[in-house]
């Protein structure tokens, strides 16, 4: 690892528990790079996570970190941010953690537009518990609880976040790590709810069942199925079938929750005098 990144990791905790070829390691490095390049005060940075493969990431990062209940990472992070608004709060969460167990916290945190940076590691499966299908498992894919193919439709996370009121929404992949770093850096700058969906891969629980090859093949799949939004604007719709968009998908700043809350307190204190 690069020496300037080593200060952001708990080097004594490595090697991590993720399987060989897991994309989460690449995304965790991208987050560290983005924090390193953004010149944040490391003593005023908090990383919160829930439960799952992705939520192990803060355990390897040398910050003030919180490893909380399943799906409740955003609830804890909202509390941290409201108690001390000058902190930079990151939430590292997985597809099941954010959209199934914590689905309600997710839409309401987006609705409030509270200044959090959410990096959602999407590996399309519940990897840690044995490969059950999650709300982000694509239709028809095999999981341990859908041996004949998943009959449900999956969420489109950016569309859900935009509809719920997020002010910054972007998507990157484990292959497009430079783009992912840029998206995270832009999310840090945005005052409000920033959601970055990071497409990861799970060769052990998802790729093996769906015959997608080894980790390198899955990484190559991410490369070929992702289309940058700037390129997609010039392409005809039939060329975008089966692809997903990456890059900055939505950015519309509007008043942030903790600032509005402070304004309300100041207004009411004036009234009491």
């Amino acid at each position, binding site marked *: 690892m690069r020496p300037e990144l080593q200060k952001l990791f708990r080097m004594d905790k*490595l090697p991590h528990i993720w399987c060989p070829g897991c994309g989460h390691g690449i995304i965790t490095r991208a987050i560290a790079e983005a924090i390193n390049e953004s010149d944040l005060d490391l003593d005023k940075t908090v990383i919160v996570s829930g439960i799952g493969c992705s939520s192990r990431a803060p355990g390897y990062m040398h910050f003030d970190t919180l490893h909380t209940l399943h799906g409740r990472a955003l609830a804890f992070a909202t509390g941290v941010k409201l108690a001390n608004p000058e902190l930079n709060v990151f939430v590292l969460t997985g597809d099941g953690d954010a959209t199934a167990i914590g689905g309600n916290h997710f839409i309401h945190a987006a609705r409030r537009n509270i200044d959090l940076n959410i990096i959602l590691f999407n590996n399309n499966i519940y990897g840690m518990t044995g490969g059950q299908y999650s709300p982000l498992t694509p239709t028809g894919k095999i999981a341990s609880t859908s041996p004949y193919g998943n009959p449900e439709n999956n969420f489109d996370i950016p569309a859900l976040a935009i509809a719920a009121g997020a002010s910054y929404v972007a998507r990157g992949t*484990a292959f497009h790590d430079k783009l992912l770093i840029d998206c995270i850096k832009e999310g840090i700058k945005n005052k409000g709810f920033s959601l970055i969906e990071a497409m990861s891969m799970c060769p052990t629980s998802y790729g093996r069942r769906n015959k997608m090859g080894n980790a*390198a093949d899955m990484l190559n799949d991410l490369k070929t199925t992702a289309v940058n939004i700037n390129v997609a604007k010039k392409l005809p719709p039939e060329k975008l079938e089966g692809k997903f968009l990456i890059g900055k998908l939505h950015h519309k700043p509007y008043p942030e929750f903790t600032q509005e809350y402070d304004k309300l307190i100041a207004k009411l204190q004036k009234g009491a005098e």
Partner: protein
Amino acid sequence: MVEKPLDIDQKLCKGCGICYTLCPKKAIKGDEKGKVVVDNPDLCSKCGICESHCPDYAIFVRREKK
């Protein structure tokens, strides 16, 4: 003496094979256990794709400071 282009931490490598599959110059390869070793250091162009895509932080590309 040719300077070593890559530092590889064999303790961290889990042998997933991403780095030597992505390497455009095929300067690195897997050993009998699948773990990464430098095959031909002269071919390495120090592009860094192995370092940035190693999920286990086992590779460090030595670059000259600008």
